[in-house]
């Protein structure tokens, strides 16, 4: 079943972005070299960047449709977004960061849910710390937790491991795999590293120079490696 349908165009400086793909449940990787337009695509899905033309549909909701003049603002899209650099709020503790989405939506605090996600990501011992006091891997786990606790319909992960060294990458990958299998939320995972994509994704959308050059299974990664992309 199709969860997310993206068909967008946008002129970004010299890059003419024209991307069309569909994602089902599970984890879809947006895979391609730096500058292919991967981050711009997820920013459009999240509503942080407005396409020039096209449409974006999540479940049965039209999030964006240029022809019909529909553009749901980011705060009403319910899409969890884990940024490359985490972007934890520096003036809040870890607990307040995790709780932010719930507070903004005005939902009652659900301690069971909070504890479940803190356990899933192994961040219980960090709750009273400030983001400054966390390691890179801890910071990204908290960022994932923060996105999950807003009860998203879709989770966007934009190169969540890019800022981490190899050791921390290994530390966080198993959590992401668990997330895919246990949380049941569709994931769009942006990466230019085949090894990461192989661990997490079920479907691969390969981007190059603002266009989708191939869509398919993990075997697409072999071609990419043969092309010298990996």
């Amino acid at each position, binding site marked *: 079943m199709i969860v997310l349908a993206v068909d967008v165009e946008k002129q970004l400086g010299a890059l003419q972005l024209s991307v069309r793909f569909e994602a089902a449940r599970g984890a879809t990787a947006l895979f391609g070299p730096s500058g292919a337009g991967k981050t711009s695509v997820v920013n459009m899905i*999240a*509503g*942080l960047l407005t396409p020039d033309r096209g449409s974006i549909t999540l479940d049965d909701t039209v999030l964006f449709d240029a022809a019909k003049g529909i553009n749901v*603002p*980011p*705060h*009403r*899209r*319910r*899409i*969890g*977004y884990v*940024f490359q*650099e985490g*972007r934890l*709020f*520096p*003036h809040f503790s870890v607990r307040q960061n995790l709780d*932010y*989405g719930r507070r*903004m*939506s005005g939902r009652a605090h659900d301690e069971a849910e909070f504890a479940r996600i803190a356990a899933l990501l192994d961040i219980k011992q960090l709750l009273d*710390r*400030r983001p*400054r*006091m966390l390691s890179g891997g801890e910071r990204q786990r908290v960022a994932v937790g*923060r*996105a999950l606790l*807003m009860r998203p319909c879709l989770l966007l992960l934009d190169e969540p491991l890019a800022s981490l060294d190899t050791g921390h990458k290994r530390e966080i990958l198993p959590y992401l795999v668990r997330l895919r299998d246990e949380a049941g939320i569709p994931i769009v995972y942006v990466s230019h590293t085949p090894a990461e994509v192989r661990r997490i994704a079920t479907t691969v959308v390969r981007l190059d120079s603002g266009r989708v050059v191939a869509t398919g299974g993990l075997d697409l990664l072999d071609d990419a490696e043969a092309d010298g992309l990996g």
Partner: protein
Amino acid sequence: MFDLSPAEWTAVELSLRIAIVATAWALPFGIAAGWLLARKNFWGKTLLDGLVFLPLVLPPVVTGYLLLIWFGRRGPIGGFLDNHFGIVFSFRWTGAALACGVMGFPLMVRPIRLAFEAIDRKFEDAAATLGANQILVFLTVTLPLALPGVIAGVLLCFARALGEFGATITFVSNIPGETQTISAAIYTLTQIPGGDAEAGRLVLVAIVLALAALIASEWLARRAAIRFHGE
């Protein structure tokens, strides 16, 4: 503690009241102006920028005179406020607060504007994806991150308001118990033969107040830094 006469205490109390009221009223406008100048592009932005900073470069007497023309009882704004809301500025302490607020305003806006400009917009994007609308993003992310700049702006405005002389005396004159602040009182005393001792006491009070404001703002800024960085 300074062995002040009741009249001198009145001047001190009046100065503090005027400076606090002026700063408190200037703050919401200062935050709005700082935000607009830092974040928005609009028609007339250069004009607003110029208007905000005008009191800094104009002779204070000119600012005071303009206030007198516009906010006096027969002035277009002053007359309107008097007729409809019963608010009178001329020769009242409220007028002194207005003059001090106007004079302190550019000093308040500058650090606030710089603080807004320095904030990484990515935190605001993150807050939006987490379900915060624009107002909540501003209140929970933008403003707290700009807090050190806001504190600096409040201190500068308060200090300016406490020491304001030229615009105040031009607009609301020098009436003991109503518009005679510490500065005006010191000025009056220096015009009287044998007023030096009294003036000296008030000078001492002015120094103590300025130092206290400086220490308070340092302390607040450090507390804000601790909130941000956890150490």
